[in-house]
């Protein structure tokens, strides 16, 4: 069974370029604005969309994504609304893969079976749940795979060769390599180390490897894209939204346009990178 993620990754491989994976926070600063941002992403050059589910206690996120989550929750965002947003997007775009990203508790409270059925119906293709390591696979990963939803796992610099097979075992769609230990939005890691890590992971899996944490500019996207199958950008996009919000949350410019401008630049960077395999 192939998913939109598999199909998109195969297509990009045949084109010989890495994917641009864009994260934004669902509901930030409000539902309508956020949906407009989501709709603008494919046209600006995003290949895969990560739709952030806000959580009150995002333990692995830095200040930018914490603040975005709080803005979204204050704006009334819930998991129900995040799924509704995916449906609304899907009505106009049946190709671009959507990956939901967040923490487990809202899903657990929603109910795992009900969540998977509703996510599938909303056109969700994959899940990244930060606080579900392979040791907790029975919770959501296995049910998701059975439901035909990709479960994308994070691999990190602390995931050594001994542990990698366990991390990769039930992973599908792609592997998300977190390029450093730390929270989202920190400084970019040493790019030579990132390339070596991607090579190491590829020695264990045929899945595409996308790299995130710390990528902010087109130039960084180009460098990372030279060795990885995809480049994930999150904090920079969330900041682009924050930058056009005034002290009281009022919009000083169009957030969707601000995000589109940033993503277009990043897309150029990614597209100028050649996959090592294609050279």
């Amino acid at each position, binding site marked *: 069974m192939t998913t939109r993620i598999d199909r998109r990754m195969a297509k990009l491989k045949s084109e010989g370029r890495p994917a641009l994976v864009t994260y934004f926070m669902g509901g930030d600063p409000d539902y309508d604005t956020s949906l407009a941002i989501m709709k603008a992403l494919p046209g600006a050059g995003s290949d895969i969309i990560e739709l952030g589910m806000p*959580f*009150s*206690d*995002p*333990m*692995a*996120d*830095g200040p930018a994504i*914490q603040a975005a989550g709080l803005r979204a*929750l204050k704006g009334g965002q*819930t*998991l*129900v609304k995040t799924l509704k947003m995916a449906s609304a997007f899907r009505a106009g775009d049946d190709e671009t893969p959507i990956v939901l990203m967040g*923490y*487990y*508790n*809202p*899903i*657990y*409270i*929603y109910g795992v079976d009900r969540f998977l059925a509703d996510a599938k119906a909303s056109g969700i293709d994959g899940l990244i749940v*930060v*606080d*579900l*390591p*392979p*040791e*907790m696979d029975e919770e959501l990963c296995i049910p998701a795979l059975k439901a035909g939803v990709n479960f994308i*796992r*994070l*691999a*990190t*610099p*602390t*995931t*050594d060769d001994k*542990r990698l097979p366990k*991390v990769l075992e039930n992973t599908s769609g792609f592997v998300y390599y*977190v390029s450093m*230990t*730390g*929270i989202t939005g*920190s400084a970019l890691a040493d790019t030579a180390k990132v390339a070596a890590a991607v090579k190491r992971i590829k020695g264990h899996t045929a899945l595409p490897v996308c790299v995130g944490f710390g990528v902010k500019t087109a130039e960084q996207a180009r460098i990372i894209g030279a060795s990885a199958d995809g480049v994930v950008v999150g904090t920079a996009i969330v900041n682009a939204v924050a930058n056009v919000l005034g002290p009281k949350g009022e919009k000083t410019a169009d957030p969707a346009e601000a995000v589109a401008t940033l993503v277009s630049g990043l897309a150029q960077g990614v597209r100028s990178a050649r996959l090592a395999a294609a050279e």
Partner: protein
Amino acid sequence: MNKPAMPNSFRTGPDEQGMFGIFGGRFVAETLMPLILDLEEQWNKAKNDPEFKAELQNLSTHYAGRPSKLYFAEGLTKHLREVSSAKGLGGGAKVYFKREDLNHTGSHKINNCLGQILLAKRMGKKRIIAETGAGQHGVASATVAARFGYPCVVYMGATDVARQSPNVFRMKLLGAEVRPVTAGHGTLKDAMNEALRDWVTNVEDTYYLIGTAAGPHPYPELVRDFQSVIGSEARAQMLEQEGRLPDTIIAAVGGGSNAIGLFHPFLDDNDVRIIGVEAGGRGLDGVEHCASMSAGSPGVLHGNRTYLLQNGDGQILDGHSISAGLDYPGVGPEHSWLRDSGRVEYVPILDDEALEAFQLTTRVEGIIPALESAHAIAHAMKIVPKMDKDQIVIVNLSGRGDKDVHTVAKMLGMEI
């Protein structure tokens, strides 16, 4: 038989996955998994190593001042017997205090910190981080870090920094860096988030010294094991002093480390009634309380599944308690399991009731209890007058209340 069969023992958890029934587990980011597995391995080795046990024993005796006393609270007992007579009941059980307030640093927190600093040393870590609510755990962490020569960073909610200023100063004197956390309500939950962010960033050299019996496996187990010295001592002391076990034991529950420490050695003594006291704050009707087991539901936060205060969307609520140490919207996973299995009762005590117990204990015993411990005493004040005179209650006096005098003065409308 409609009732589920009781387990043969309540003392065998957690299982290999770190679960107490459906509670507990390892809900953490992948970055932390190798560390948690390493900690588990080191802990399993250490707990059976005579050298480790001897070193901890030596420090407990000569540095922390253990064993702590089991003290017959004659003044409080007399007072509650008068209350009982006035109600025409003519009863009133004997009340004993387990005096964890007499430990070095003034609370039970030192028991766990000594154990964990020895683990950090074995693991070759170079830096200690901790979270703190009331500052008791922060002070104990800063103390062992000073004693063993480690740099120490303590995360503390900004609200707690303000209401527990004496402890903040103590930590600074001990050489620790106190980092105030302004997110959320600026309480223990927010401090724990920030400590986890530090840990995930500095995994190579940093040991996270968790202060309560919560978090990802193996923390709930190892903190419980280090704190179980409270109950083991109390059980032996009671047998020696009264020749029998107590009828009821009571402890305050925030995250639940002092409570699980007292309870665990008594769990299989079926005739001993065990009561955990949660922070009822300003009442369970609204959101201004921290009674996660009385008014919450199971969810996943800070690495474990446990009872939490949360809304219908799975967002965690901030809660409220007069006591910074109980101001946490969750609880250790073993307590959640003990609640559902029915072995332990969990009840709420309001801010005002705790304040009254604080004042009464100070007056009739000459002991200023921590506001956390005052919650446990407040519940004893409710049930002891209804008990018989030949019955016995142990209350865990988990810490001393010097740190709380500013909060209490403010509540009473006094200037100091």
